[in-house]
């Protein structure tokens, strides 16, 4: 039975490490740090005696009462001329587009009194359909990055735009070889501007290059990436492609993926997902079957799959590869059988940047008949999300080295940081006489440039995007550029020289008639994108259509058939031979992207740094992931806790070494492999990111004219010392109580309530003990409106009852909700040091559980009841555990244990079902947190917004004029000494209700949504009024899969969960 599985959050729990056992029952791992929060700078913290404490107490009481005697005079300064669209206290929403070369997302930007404060997905988009991920959510904070450039620079000196334009104009006029290096540009107008520029300066060449390259995929598909539809596949096979959080278009794919994975009353089928990979990725963690391979075997798996599929569909086989583990080929055969069974409704993708691997994968999909307009791959609809060419980049670098490049303009790229050491960009860069960087911050590349032309943040910019053929979106500014020389509306000038649109640089330098990008953009859309208007009233029609597009953010038109570029791809047999010749052996490393930091361009964003990695749960660092068993063999510290830190190692390959870097045990990691995350080790990103982790881009290989992120023959040697890693995985644990319920699809089809059996508890009846349902022994009165006995004289329970459903089957663990919640609720960033003390403040955490098949029954059968032996056995099963994600926030119990223990009634229950927390009433006894079985309450140990200790990490610092602008004015910034927790976004509920009241109508389902539910790309979280029988959440309440967390405590939460259903293949294996 699935529900008898043993779950564990980390190896510490699995092996019952002493410090874990000590800490698990405690709400607060550390002792109360009175010293720390009483002692300020200048005071020796340890000298705070009881006397001092009393002195402080007395003084603060006196000071407070003195200060309170006189009300301060508060100034209020209204606008001089109020902008028409702004009403103080009311949100404005602008549709825009996010694309940073990595994630594409059509978004809505919420602004308040002129300040963008939140990003949400745009449901009108046909691409991302209202989803957004953690990186997109975080981008609003990057707008307020205090490291942003405020004006152009010549060398290291500040300059004026006139000077810069004049000098650059002269340099460009001299002619010579001009190169423009950018990341993928999906803006058609920008493409046109660069084309205009090229026309003006004939020696110009434009090179696209992506930090994490997709050249291999492009080359294998004749220069253009096809469109993928994961919702149209019944069987999804991914060979090391982390399509849920990083590969190509993760926001879109996770939405599609969830669509195929959801089950319910009317849908008892779900897609099956098989993942071949070395490191544990989010996609791998969500897979029904996960097969461990070495990175060098990705090609072999593809060939193996090809051969097996070909055998059944009548194709010719390629030379059969060999595997490190015989189980792999067994698995491949089974996978192929499943694929063939779902022919035409399957999908095979590979994450490799090796053209040869992608060629084989393409051929597998062809054999499986997966290509077509309504099938999982549409080759006719081009995807423009990655256009970077590794070959062009290599050519550029060799030209630069040879001194052939006179002017290099870089835009939205940072190759000094993220080009592989093997290609030698940094040396080549030094040889270019004139380097112009169009950048937002003075990053590694810009700091070496001769001219820095600062660009607007995307939230201050106009723009357009064309992610897929026929699908367009517009970007519009949600705020006037923060760094502007002039503010015309206010008629004032600033001390800054100001930033400008990157495009305006090109327009200006090429002497365009329309140097204003907005005008250019409009003209371009009029001419090339929006349908042609007749001459009569054409302008009027255009403006109308333009405004409509701007308001919805997106525009779709019929796709032009794809123009195939020269078919340069490899033949299948050549691909096979290239695959077998690829480097392999020794320890193999995978250089991967983390869900939060990604390729590192937003590394200076504290929200992303603080977001625990979905798999490792480590914050603020990168590290080497390694199989725990292997670590044990090598004598690295396996259990990381207070006393034992991570071991440090040196990783080197092909003459490049990273040192020192900590080792982190990763269950599920293939033996003989390591993983290192890209995007860390920044030196010029800003004060948040500088010096965090090591730069793994240095290890990227240059093979077969592409960058390879799998590195063979890596040496790992132990380095001196140890290192503390701030992982949250064992914080706030629910002491191994049964919180996770899961079943298999097979069981689920037989019984919808499978895996969700009611728990019984032994009850003494007279002298007999009997197992009874906990409902029978309920001591408390019911709160729920379904049994309206209580709430005497209170009409409230007739109205609304807020409920939240969390579908464990849909949750992919991506962490978008965590960031979204932080943004909405002003959740403080606490930094690594505090996370080490288990004092992270996130209101919503995503528990990641590993599990294995070993059950109590099995253990008894095999005579392993002695716990030590059982755990030893389970350690072996931790080699490739199953993974489950469970978002946990305040459960809003109707019988809340926290409410009964609060001595000052700072936490109480609302008639609408919400467990309310009143910060200004809280005196910080922390009783509530100690009494909470879900451990969802967070205590403010410090004034995070004022304490200088958090100056670099917390954007909401009082001294940080920029960072504070991101705060949501509807939510209080909590001060030291008070408890806080999820409020079910009560500010949104109140605003939503008020809107309905003003408009004299009832609340529509979905109109009021919490930040986490809104941002969830897979809609695993559904929020609504449970008293409205038509609401989505009310329907889910009737679903057999729903269960309450720790139901036997009878806390009767308003948040409920839905059993996870795995489409596991136990039945297939037994065939």
């Amino acid at each position, binding site marked *: 039975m699935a529900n008898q599985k043993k779950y564990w959050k980390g190896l510490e729990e699995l092996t019952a490490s002493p410090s874990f056992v000590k800490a698990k029952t405690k709400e607060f791992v550390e002792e109360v740090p009175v010293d720390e929060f009483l002692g300020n700078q200048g005071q020796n913290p340890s000298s705070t005696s009881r006397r001092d404490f009393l002195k402080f107490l007395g003084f603060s009481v006196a000071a407070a009462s003195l200060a309170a005697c006189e009300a301060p005079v508060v100034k209020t300064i209204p*606008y001089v*001329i109020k902008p028409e669209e702004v009403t103080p206290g009311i949100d404005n929403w602008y549709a825009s587009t996010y694309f940073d070369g990595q994630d594409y997302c059509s978004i809505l930007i919420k602004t308040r009194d002129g300040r963008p404060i939140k990003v949400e997905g745009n449901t009108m988009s046909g691409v991302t359909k209202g989803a957004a991920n953690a990186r997109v959510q975080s981008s609003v904070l990057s707008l307020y990055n205090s490291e942003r450039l405020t004006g152009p620079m010549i060398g290291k000196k500040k300059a004026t735009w006139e000077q810069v334009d004049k000098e650059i104009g002269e340099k460009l006029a001299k002619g010579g070889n001009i190169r423009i290096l950018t990341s993928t540009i999906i803006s058609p107008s920008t493409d046109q501007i660069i084309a205009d520029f090229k026309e003006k300066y004939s020696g110009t060449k434009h090179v696209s290059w992506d930090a994490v390259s997709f050249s291999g995929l492009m080359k294998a598909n004749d220069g253009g990436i096809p469109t993928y539809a994961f919702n149209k596949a019944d069987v999804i096979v991914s060979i090391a492609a982390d399509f849920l959080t990083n590969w190509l278009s993760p926001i879109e794919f996770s939405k599609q993926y969830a669509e195929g994975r959801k089950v319910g009353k009317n849908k008892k089928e779900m897609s099956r997902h098989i993942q071949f990979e070395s490191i544990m990725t989010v996609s791998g963690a969500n897979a029904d079957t996960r097969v461990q391979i070495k990175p060098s075997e990705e090609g072999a798996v593809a060939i193996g799959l090809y051969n097996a599929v070909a055998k059944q569909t009548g194709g010719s086989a390629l030379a059969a590869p060999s595997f490190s583990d015989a189980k792999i080929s067994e698995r491949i055969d089974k996978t192929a059988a499943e694929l063939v069974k779902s022919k035409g409704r399957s999908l095979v993708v590979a994450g490799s940047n090796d053209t040869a691997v992608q060629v084989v994968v393409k051929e597998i999909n062809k054999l499986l008949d997966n290509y077509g307009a309504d099938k999982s791959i549409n080759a006719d609809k081009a995807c423009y999300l990655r256009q970077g060419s590794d070959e062009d980049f290599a050519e550029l670098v060799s030209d630069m080295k040879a001194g052939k490049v006179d002017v290099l303009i870089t835009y939205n790229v940072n190759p000094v940081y993220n080009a592989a050491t093997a290609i030698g960009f940094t040396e080549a860069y030094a040889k270019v006489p004139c380097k112009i960087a169009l950048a937002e911050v003075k990053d590694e590349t810009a700091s070496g440039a001769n001219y820095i032309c600062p660009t607007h943040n995307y939230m201050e910019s106009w723009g357009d995007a064309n992610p897929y053929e026929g699908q367009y979106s517009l970007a519009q500014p949600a705020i006037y550029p923060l760094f502007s020389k002039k503010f015309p509306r206010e008629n004032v000038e600033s001390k800054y020289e100001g930033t400008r649109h990157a495009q305006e640089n090109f327009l200006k330098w090429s002497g365009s008639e329309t140097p204003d990008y907005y005008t250019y953009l409009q003209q371009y859309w009029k001419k090339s994108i929006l349908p042609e208007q007749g001459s009569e009233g054409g302008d009027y029609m255009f403006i109308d259509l333009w405004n409509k597009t701007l308001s919805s953010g997106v525009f779709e038109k019929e796709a032009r058939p794809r123009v195939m570029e020269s078919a340069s791809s490899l033949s299948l047999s050549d691909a096979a031979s290239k695959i077998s010749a690829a480097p392999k052996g020794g320890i193999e490393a995978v250089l991967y992207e983390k869900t939060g930091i990604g390729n590192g361009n937003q590394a200076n964003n504290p929200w992303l740094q603080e977001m625990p990695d979905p798999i490792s749960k480590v914050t603020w660092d990168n590290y080497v992931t390694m199989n725990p068993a292997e670590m044990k063999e090598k004598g690295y510290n396996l259990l990381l806790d207070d006393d034992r830190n991570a071991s440090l190692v040196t990783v080197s390959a092909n003459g490049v070494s990273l040192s020192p870097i900590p080792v982190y045990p990763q269950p599920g990691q293939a033996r003989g492999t390591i993983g290192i995350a890209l995007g860390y080790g920044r030196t010029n990103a800003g004060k948040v990111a500088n010096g965090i982790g090591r730069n793994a881009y240095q290890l990227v290989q240059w093979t077969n004219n592409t960058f390879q992120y799998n590195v063979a023959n890596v040496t790992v040697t132990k380095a001196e010392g140890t290192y503390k890693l701030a992982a949250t995985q064992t914080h706030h644990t629910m002491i191994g109580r049964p919180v996770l319920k899961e079943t298999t699809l097979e069981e689920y089809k037989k019984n919808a309530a499978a895996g969700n059996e009611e728990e019984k508890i032994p009850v003494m009846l007279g002298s007999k003990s009997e197992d009874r349902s906990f409902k029978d022994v309920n001591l408390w009165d019911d709160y729920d409106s379904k049994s309206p006995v209580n709430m005497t004289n209170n009409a409230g329970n*007739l109205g609304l009852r807020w409920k939240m459903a969390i579908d464990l089957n849909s949750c992919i663990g991506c962490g978008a909700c965590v960031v979204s919640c932080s943004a909405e609720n002003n959740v403080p960033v606490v930094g690594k040091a505090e996370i080490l003390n288990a004092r992270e403040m996130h209101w919503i955490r995503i528990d990641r559980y590993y599990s294995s098949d070993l059950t109590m029954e099995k253990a008894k059968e095999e005579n392993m009841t002695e716990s030590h032996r059982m755990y030893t056995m389970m350690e072996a099963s931790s080699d490739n555990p199953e993974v489950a994600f469970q978002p946990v926030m305040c459960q809003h119990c109707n019988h809340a244990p926290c409410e009964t223990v609060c001595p000052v009634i700072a936490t109480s229950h609302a008639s609408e079902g919400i467990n309310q927390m009143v910060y200004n*009433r809280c005196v910080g006894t922390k009783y509530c947190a100690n009494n909470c079985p879900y451990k969802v309450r967070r205590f403010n140990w410090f004034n995070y917004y004022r304490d200088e200790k958090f100056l670099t990490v917390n954007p909401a610092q009082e001294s940080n004029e920029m960072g504070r602008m991101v705060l949501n004015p*509807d939510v209080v910034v909590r001060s030291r000494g008070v408890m806080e927790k999820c409020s079910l976004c009560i500010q949104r509920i109140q605003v939503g209700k*008020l809107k*309905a009241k003003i408009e004299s109508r009832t609340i529509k389902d979905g109109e009021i949504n919490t930040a986490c539910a809104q941002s969830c790309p897979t809609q695993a979280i559904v929020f609504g009024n449970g008293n409205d029988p038509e609401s989505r959440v009310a329907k889910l309440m009737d679903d057999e899969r729903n269960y309450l967390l720790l139901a036997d405590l009878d806390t009767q939460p308003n948040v409920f969960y839905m059993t996870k259903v795995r489409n596991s293949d136990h039945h297939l294996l037994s065939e």
Partner: protein
Amino acid sequence: MNIPSKKLQKSLVAFLAFVLALATPNISNAADAGNGQKVFKANCTSCHAIGRKVVGPDLEGVTKRVPSTDWMFSWIKNNAAVLKSGDKYATQVFNDNGKQAMTVFDGTLSDDQIKDVIAYLAVAKPDAGPTATAGTGATETGAPEKGKGQFVWIIVIIIGILFIIVTVLRTVRKSLQTVVDEKTGEKTQVGTGTTVWQDIGIWIRNHKSRFAVTIIFFIAVSSVYSWEYLWGIDVTPGYHPSQPINFMHKVHAGDNGIACIYCHSGAEKGKVAGIPTLNVCMNCHKGIQGSTPEYQKEIAKVYYAAGWDPAKGDYTNPPHPVQWNRVHSLPDFAYFNHSQHVVVGKVECEKCHGDVKTFTTDQQFAPLTMGWCINCHRETPVQMEGNGYYAKLHEAIKQKFGDDKKITEADMGGLECGKCHY
């Protein structure tokens, strides 16, 4: 020029009226200049003044300028018709004043009223013009509470005098005692100390119970007072700070009956009622420059802040945002939304803000304490009738509690913490 054309029309009417009045003194005699002044103030002052040009021309001595009183009469009545007729003088006036049409008063003002106005214009004396420059310096409007401070000082002085008297008397008594002692040869009586403190100690020892009662009484009284005092910290009804512009609510909301919502438009839309931005002020004050020197001084401050140049009639000066002193300041942890109360709850502004129509600058009326909020929530019935939001709920409530149950805000969960604190 973005000045509404109506205003010029008005100005020309008044101008004409003045001319008429001058040319025909007999009309002036028959008409009532006093009534004319009232009509003039009500209808003409937004564009005209005596002694200076506003939107329309300066009307000082206008009755002497115009061709005839009849001309002026017809001009005020319907200037458009006069202009249409091709009248030379009218055309010239029209061109000289920015070609802005004046309001047609035909139908608005009776013939007698027009005659009254002309009569008034014939005798009207110039009012003082607005001061050219103005700062945004605060003007004291709130009367400082001097009384309390003086009272305390008086008590202190009285206590001091009493103390001196007691000391002197005691010294005198002691000297006399010494003299008596010397004379009689007796020793000092038991129970008399050598110092004041000893005396007091002795008195206390002799009157233990009386002393205890006094002390207890003293503690009780001071406790009550300090309790009340502590509750009153930061509770400031009547708070009436000085403001950079001495804005007269009395004139705007009272005399002129401008609805609160016209300026505080946010009250219907969102949480902040809002201090009107200067463009709202300028909607009217482009024309209205003030009838008294005091008003003119304050309105000039508005011009200064808005960057409006009255001479040029345009926003050409740099703006200087007004820094008002905030009167109603709820703490951050309390969420209050105006639209909830004004639109949904249909609460009158005066309920919380007092009779603003009689105020000069704003002052705090309600205590703004939580108890005050809660009380109102306890007493106020929810405005369910006619609101679609409550339709279904209302039915359910009627079923559960009966038809005549008064559903207050508190019944709806209006006392729950999370309604205001998050």
